[in-house]
């Protein structure tokens, strides 16, 4: 199986290049402004470098002074010669084995932790270095108030304990119910015993006998207003509950933020560390699903970082037991609706946040958008098509301009037709 060869090999390569290309488009152009006093760089190279950097380097290196896993890269262009950097990035182990003094020194300085090899071309490495240089200059401009931005991580400790208590609560409830039932049965037994005893004595007068042998009239309860209201109320509540569940079943659950098996924080990863979405959600530019990262993607970093944290230990356990992590699904489209991420992210250039909200600020992910058909259609009606530079649309844009003065929206290209999403 391992040596099975995908037919679409070349296609995927192209797709990969395109996904890189769109990443450039998505990344903020602010970094490419070029610092004062530094020689201006080609913005294309800088943004290409930025994309590569964010996809590959950012998890271990910062552009500042601080050490993440590997050293901070501030001033790296001055510290080392470019050819040295190129051979180091491409294959650090080879450089170390060749006995290069600097290489061995860095290797030892960081506890003999090897930097993985990257299959970049020379130009790609240069573009990354160019980006780092430009990022330094931007950082220098905005350096003033930036200090103290670090927030303390680890606010999440202790939520696990609630789960454990929840488990006990169930048991306590069951025990309580059993005790209550036993109580009721005992009481009933006692009354019937007493009744029998009193009746046998035959010393009761008429009034007492009536009290002892009174019959309980069920029909009265049945007919009482209170009971009827209660039944109707319960019925309504049940119906509401049912309806709510049905609605949630097809994804209408705005704000739904279930507790996940691992307290993963998008705020930390996407927000503070600015890891590109594509780094973990690997198919977001390629396929219909954005894909939830597999454990091996977590391990790219967490084999080094915070490996002792109890949350990270859960991933280790999953790997040891060979059981995948069962996340709670938040976004549920009904089966009859077809949605494709690639169409929206890569082709249309829609930002992840447009539908998923301020994901970079979410400690726990919640459903930001209603995900109803009306919501989809509204956006398709209002959003102009992203036709720029896409030869697919060239002729359509021309035809649209001839016939209409309005914006060339998704809907005017047939984007509200049934079979675009339902088949």
């Amino acid at each position, binding site marked *: 199986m391992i040596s099975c060869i995908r037919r679409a090999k070349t296609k995927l390569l192209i797709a990969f290049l395109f996904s890189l290309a769109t990443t450039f488009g998505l990344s903020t152009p602010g970094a490419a402004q070029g610092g004062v006093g530094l020689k201006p760089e080609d913005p294309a190279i800088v943004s290409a470098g930025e994309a590569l950097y964010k996809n590959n380097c950012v998890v271990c290196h910062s552009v500042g002074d601080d050490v993440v896993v590997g050293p901070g890269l501030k001033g790296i262009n001055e510290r080392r010669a470019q050819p040295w950097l190129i051979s180091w990035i491409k294959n650090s182990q080879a450089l170390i084995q060749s006995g290069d003094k600097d290489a061995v020194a860095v290797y030892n300085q960081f506890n003999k932790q090897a930097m993985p090899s990257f299959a970049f071309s020379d130009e790609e490495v240069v573009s990354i270095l160019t980006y780092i240089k430009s990022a330094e200059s931007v950082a220098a401009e905005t350096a003033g108030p930036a200090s103290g931005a670090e927030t303390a991580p680890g606010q999440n400790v202790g939520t696990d304990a609630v789960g454990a208590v929840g488990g006990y609560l169930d048991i306590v409830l069951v025990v309580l119910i059993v005790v209550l039932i036993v109580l009721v049965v005992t009481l009933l037994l006692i009354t019937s015993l007493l009744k029998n005893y009193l009746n046998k004595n035959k010393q009761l007068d008429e009034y007492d006998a009536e009290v002892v042998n009174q019959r309980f009239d069920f029909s009265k309860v049945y007919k009482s207003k209170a009971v009827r209201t209660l039944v109707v109320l319960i019925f309504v509540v049940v119906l509401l509950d049912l309806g709510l569940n049905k609605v949630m079943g097809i994804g209408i659950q705005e704000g739904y933020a279930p507790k996940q098996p691992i307290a993963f924080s998008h705020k930390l990863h996407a927000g503070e560390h600015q890891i590109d979405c594509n780094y973990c959600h690997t198919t977001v530019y390629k*396929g219909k699903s954005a894909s939830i990262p597999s454990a091996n993607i977590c391990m790219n970093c967490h084999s080094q970082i915070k490996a002792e944290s109890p949350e990270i230990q859960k991933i280790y356990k999953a790997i040891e037991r060979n059981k995948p992590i069962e996340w709670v699904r938040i976004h549920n489209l009904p089966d009859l609706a077809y949605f494709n991420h690639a169409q929206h992210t890569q082709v249309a250039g829609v930002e992840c946040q447009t539908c998923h909200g301020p994901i970079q600020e979410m400690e726990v992910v919640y459903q930001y958008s209603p995900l109803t058909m009306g919501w989809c259609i509204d956006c398709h009606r209002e959003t102009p098509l992203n036709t720029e530079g896409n030869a697919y649309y060239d002729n359509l844009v021309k035809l649209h301009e001839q016939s209409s003065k309005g914006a060339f929206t998704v809907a005017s290209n047939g984007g509200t037709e049934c079979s675009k999403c339902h088949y």
Partner: protein
Amino acid sequence: MQDRIKYWKGIEELENTPEFAKHAHNEFPEFLPINETNGAGESSGVTAPRRDFLKLLGFGLAAATLASCEAPVRKAIPYLNKPVDVEPGVANWYASTYYNDGDFNSILVKAREGRPIKIEPNPGSSLTPRGTSPKAQASVLSLYDNNRLRTPLIKGKEAQWDQVDKEIRAALAGANGKVALVSSTVISPSTKQLINEFGAGLGNFEHVTYDANSASALIGANGGTVPGYDFSKANIIVSINADFLGTWIAPIPFANQYIQNRKVSSDKRNMSRHYQFEAIMSLTGANADVRVPIKPSEELAVVTAIYNGLSGQGASAPANVDKKAIDAAIKDLRANNGRALVVSGSNDPAVQTLVTAINKTIGSEGATIDTAAPFYTKQGSDAQMLRLIEEMNNGSVAAVFFYNANPVYDHPLAERVVSGLKRVPLKVSFADRVEETASLADYVTPDHHYLESWNDYEPKRGFISLAQPVISPIFMTRQMQDSLLAWSGNKTTYYDYIRNNWRKAATGDFNAFWEKAVHDGVLQNGTSMLAVNTGAASTMTASEAAGRAAKAAGKGIEAVVYEKVAIGTGSEANNPWLQEMADPITKATWDNYITMPRRMAEEMGVVQGNVMKVSFGNGKSIELPVLVQPGQAQGTVGIAMGYGRQLDSMPTAKGRGANAFPIATVVDDAILYTGAVQLEKTNSTIEIAQMQTHHTIMDRLIVQENTLAKYQENPKEVTEYIRLATHEGPAKPAAISLWEDYEYKNHHWGMVIDLNSCIGCGACTISCQAENNIPVVGKQEVLNRREMHWMRIDRYYSSVEHEEKDYKTMEDPAENPSVIFQPMMCQHCNHAPCETVCPVAATMHSSEGVNQMVYNRCVGTRYCANNCPYKVRRFNWFAYANNDKFDFNMNNDLGKMVLNPDVTVRSRGVMEKCSFCVQRIQLGKLEAKRENRRPVDGEIVSACAQSCPTDAIIFGDMLDPNSRISQILVRENGERAFHVLEELNVQPNVTYLTKIRNLA
């Protein structure tokens, strides 16, 4: 008055029987309320009382309340360790190979998240570049068959592999006598070498090859192999009982070749002429220009007549056979020396010897027969198997292995096989389930499905195709080759074994060569690796064979045991898609039956569905219903093989029809698939579930055909165009319209179907079923006329209605009708009648010309189906998924793995129909957009078009002037292009091309 061609779909329509008239008037057979028992029992008439309904409602509410105590939590479970190649939601394609009973296809397998879901042709293969067979399409479902063995068995009990290995190795070491491995044809070079090595280690070993439907006479008469036929080079094709388009030798390569010289256009106004002499109406016979019904016993006489006629001795045709046709065939063969081909499907050595001699006479060798590249897809030797059966019975066989062979079921001497097996101490079967032979075996060591295996195939000398696994084994099975390696003490895996074997074919760096071969799936550099045993050559001479002609004369009713296109010899009988596929000719599903000419049925006083007892040799008999078959030779009946399974391991096939193999007779060490039978009427009837007259034509102009002579004379006159009368004279229907036309800016999807190319094989219907999650509904629902297939192939019989004074009016039109096939699916009308009548706008037109069907809007009024002139809409009468009443693949978790995740599984109560594979259109457009370009022509094709072995269906963007479809439409406009029911002015996006017949 001009002769008019009358079209009819079945005898009932020709005769206008009361049953047919009733159906024709009630277009929709379904009456409300529909029976919940789905018609299986008698209609009870009892309706659920209201109180029961309320009770159920109350209970349902309570149950739902209990179930909904907590909000539904849905899980999203990613890979633990994602394989590099697999991206969730993105399909992977792997090159592989399907081979079963001669049916060879180089294929591509589409896999989603690691599970194969669709088979497509491998365009890189020079042998089968276009299309697949229906069996290949359906084979992916066999992978998910819930009845496959999950572990090896020892004496019927589940066991572990190491235990099995230990016991079999010990038994082999102590074997006293011959060890035999019985298999159907093996065309894998590595497997064959491995079997030989396995045998060499044992000493007294024989590899016995036999085919359930054998071609051993053909092989014997041609020096031990099947000649390298090339139908594409033949101008004249004469076939005697060879169903080469449907089932014979290698049908898909042959169909690919055949059609090349059958297509006509303004560039090529000529085509081959095809004579067919046959007893049953076969798929090939239905496509012939001249078809002559003959009895099987007349085969030799016909071949002798042709042989003698060619060698100038004067043809003497048998009395009952149309002499004119034989003379015409001889004349044509003579005139086309080196450009003609004669083939025969007979297993009579004399017939095959003469056919070989005829091909020599007409200069076929080196021209229409590639002598350097014979076919290997059938290698079985009847004599060898018969000898082994005798040896088993006399106790000289110590061990026998069965690989892709099931003689207890499919050998005419099955009883001798059973008695022989009792005397063999060690019996091992590699079957994937406990089938007839495996149930008698000591050990069943289940083989992988081919989609789980590595293998190589050489169907034709110098053409090698590879198979690679596309899914890890689902069950604890082991590939047969790995089992042999284990038992012979060889530690290598079969994968390494193949690689080592391929080193001899490699050029340059082996790893690069191997990777390329695996990627391409085929190796076409002329390397041959298969060692074929050519010892079976016969020594009969042509004059000897011709001399036999006098001896063979038929007495009584002759029965022909034939292969159906879908079920074949029955090895994949448990596949529900194949069981429900309409037979190309009879349009029957789910059963076999006695095909009988109408005159014989009248003489015997039986009608369709009457059960008859068929008695043959040794007083054995089977009971089957009668199906009146136009074109069946007088004095013959046809019965399909592959049915009559009685085992629990084949629940889908269990109890369907009867086993016809015992009718075949053994004569002089050869199996003849014919035999004399007595027919006896019984009192019972079995309804045959046919799809043929479910959608009637009411005598409208639906299909069009003309002759090649007319076409060459004036191609503008071969098609009839209906004009409407207006006050300004006749006008095109499209010129008079109530509606405004749509404006298409982006794409305008359309389809062209060439009736001249369609051979009616039905691969498209199964391909459509696989692509679009179409449910299997079972025999009863087909009888209720509620099949769900989105596309059907309408088969029309036609006969010429002559003027009354013509004596031919006295003849029976059903005696030998012409046949025409017409694939029919949603026509995606631009002025669609269905769209205007839907009260909830659940079906509407898209800006790309597609008629969209929105399931979640549909409320099931069925107005659209009522208003559709093509009868292509299907209503979901039941929930077919997760329903025990429809216990097919959609009712178990394993079977559901075949579903296409991009297509909705429809619920009960909604209408559905062909979508032009809109999921493929959307995906193709997305791919193009992602690469900043327009879609390339041929990139977006519907499933039916992709799987068509004859390129009869062309799908594309009619707005792109350079697309193939646009060019064909320009070229054929006014010549052969027509719309069905043009007079209704519904303006379909599907265009048909008139069929051209090259009549003699």
